[in-house]
């Protein structure tokens, strides 16, 4: 049975918070004052689209579009934050620091919850080249998949470990070529 995704952003008011964050990332002088009074408590993790490509050599590249705390990540490190690509029980986890871990776990087969994230962050082994984080900016993350991901359905999820809490985004399906 499909688990209920206890996404932090499914809670009441979370949508408004995300929408506001997506709509305006700007800040400045009064922003300075206001920012100074308004440090946030939860990272923004929102996926709006995913896509998958393959090059002539068969390498698969997945892009995830949405919003996350890109500007904060430029300032300081989270204990863990990145993108998960899941196909069945297989997963590849891409930290924005460049570390890539791949593995298999029944935990990921039916969705990922924040409660499962601490366990998941301890599973898997380092992925070999050419598997890597290719690109990340405030609107998009793109990664190269392990070769043993096959054509067909997969899903992508953003995750973060910030302070003492764990967060996952909504999941977006992608079809691998």
């Amino acid at each position, binding site marked *: 049975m499909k688990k209920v995704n206890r996404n932090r952003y499914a809670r009441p008011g979370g949508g408004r*918070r995300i929408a*506001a*964050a997506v*709509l*305006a*990332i*700007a*800040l*400045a*002088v*009064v*922003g*300075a*004052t*206001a*920012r*100074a*009074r*308004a*440090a*946030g*408590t*939860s*990272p923004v993790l929102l996926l709006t689209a995913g*896509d998958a*490509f*393959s*090059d*002539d*050599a068969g*390498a698969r*590249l997945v*892009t995830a*579009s949405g919003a996350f*705390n890109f*500007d*904060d*990540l*430029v*300032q*300081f*490190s*989270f204990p863990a934050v990145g993108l998960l690509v899941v196909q069945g029980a297989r997963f590849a986890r891409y930290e*924005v*620091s*460049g570390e890539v871990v791949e593995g298999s776990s029944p935990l990921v087969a039916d969705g990922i919850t924040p409660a499962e994230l601490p366990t998941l962050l301890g599973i898997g082994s380092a992925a070999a*080249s*050419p598997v*890597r*984080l*290719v*690109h*990340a*900016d*405030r*609107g*998009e993350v*793109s990664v*190269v998949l392990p070769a043993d991901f096959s054509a067909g359905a997969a899903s992508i999820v953003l995750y973060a470990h*910030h302070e003492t809490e764990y967060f996952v985004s909504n999941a977006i399906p992608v079809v691998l070529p």
Partner: protein
Amino acid sequence: MTHLRSGRFAAFACSLVASALAALALVTPAHAIPAVYAGDPTDAAGRPRIILPGVPLIDWGPDARFGTSDDVVDTSIVGDVDLVVRTGGTFVPGSGVIPAPAASVAGAPQVVAGGLQFPSSGGEVPYDLIVSDGAPSPAAGHALPDPDLDGRGALVVAFADLDGDGFVGPTDDDAAGAADDAVEAQEAAMLVGRRLAVLQSGAASGGLGVSLGLPASAGGLGLVIAGGAVTGAVPPLYDDDGWISTLFPVLWPLDPGHIIGGGNPRPADPFGLVDIEVDYERVFRPAPRNPVLGTPFAIPLDGSSVTNDLVRAISGPAVAVAFARALDPATFVPDPSRSVLPLDESDGTRHVVEPVRSLSLVDDGPGGTASLLVFPADVLGNQADPPAAGAAIELQASANLRIVAPDADGDPRRETLAFTEAGFAEVVLDDAGATNDGGAQGQLVATLDGAAAGAVRVTLTPGTGGGTTGGIVRGSTVVKRARMPRKDALRVEAHLDASLAALAAASRDLTIALEDAAGAPFYTRTLPAGSLVPNRRATSFGYRDPASTGAGRIAQLMLVRAPMGAARTILRLRVTGLDLSAVDLASPSMGERIALGTDAFQATLACVANRAGNILTCKR
């Protein structure tokens, strides 16, 4: 954006100032005024006024909106220096001395874009945010180490000089004048780095990461650093009273209550999430040369804005391939949430572009192309220096797409772009085959030195009819190589086998592509639909690049109805500032292709070089 108008201010400055000030006179806080405010102008209730340094008093009036009739500007009151930011760790706490800012981008501290977390990239630039006593001399005043602002939250931010004109924010004093003000407004709207801090003994220090940069070989990207701090009395947020700041390239809402978002604010923490947003509609961002204010918000990158400092941001190593399109300054609308990048040509010419993640093409056969700028990029998408050994980008188009230009290998599905220095390539993409035979989607994948490194999704929309491939019945093309580098010129005259009306020049893309006898393209330019402007009777259409355009400026482009009512159209093109050094001036022929939307015209021209060997004339 609504601009201040001198008449409006003249009318209201006198009549409304008293009432506006009275309206703003809230209850005076029952705490000691911090020393930084000593001698500063106050409102009727004795509260220090919020005024940016060197800028006249600007108040939005009772409606809390700038650009409305109750705005108040008092040019007799000009903000002093309250807060200064310095980069590079030059400030010595306790010295009382505020060091001078960097006098140029070249002399400013360098930082690699990406902060400390992104892979094989990134760094932080040290900053010091310093409370100043506002003394008139030295210009930035003296450091004020009083503890009366201890614990107050502060924010340090970075703005980018995207267009490389030496200013952050709109100015007409650059080479482009007012033509690029909208793009320059983006500089003031978009933060490329921001970090929270906490004041202690009159200063806050730390490291600032930035998200934008340019190749080191190009000198990096100039950033202006600014900062602000709250000065309230009520812990832990201290947002109950005014704020102080360095100069900013705009004036943000005066009332923090008009900040969008908020939610569950916490005290400032350099390692905490920054989670507030500013209502951009309530930001005061006057056009340059305002009749009352002048241009006080454009911050020069020459060290003359004493409250600010500079940083030189360079991109990380090339690990990705990025796609972008140039912004049209005439139609661009600044938006804080919009991603915009600087991009340098190999000759140093600066462009401002936005990333392209997907594009749409009409499935109409030849013609109706789309142009992309392609370049090696760091992990954040910034233009990057290729490795010393060079880098090769291979573009791989799906079978339903065609790489029109460049086409050095004769394979419309693949193209290899070699980069030995920082730069970009302009790629023209079209649907393959005929009308409506391509399906719904295609892809353009890029590899960097053999590894998948970027992709663009292409959506194909149904065409409304087959394009035609006609001829260039007569014409000449002259390539003139100058003695000075990058001063080569090109002149084209082509008689197209179609009437001007049939070409629908105003509503379709125009692509001009030239290649040498070996099929190597040496000139390609696509003007998007709407670029060509008709004369009053629509008997001709014209276009020219702004005079400030550097390399490859179209000095003249005309599409003219042929005389005698013939169903022909004459295209005349004159381009200057080119680097045509790769063109073989002994080439016996030249390929010419001109496409308007779905209609393409092509011909092979016979070429002859002059005796001096610097001019190649090709005719049909």
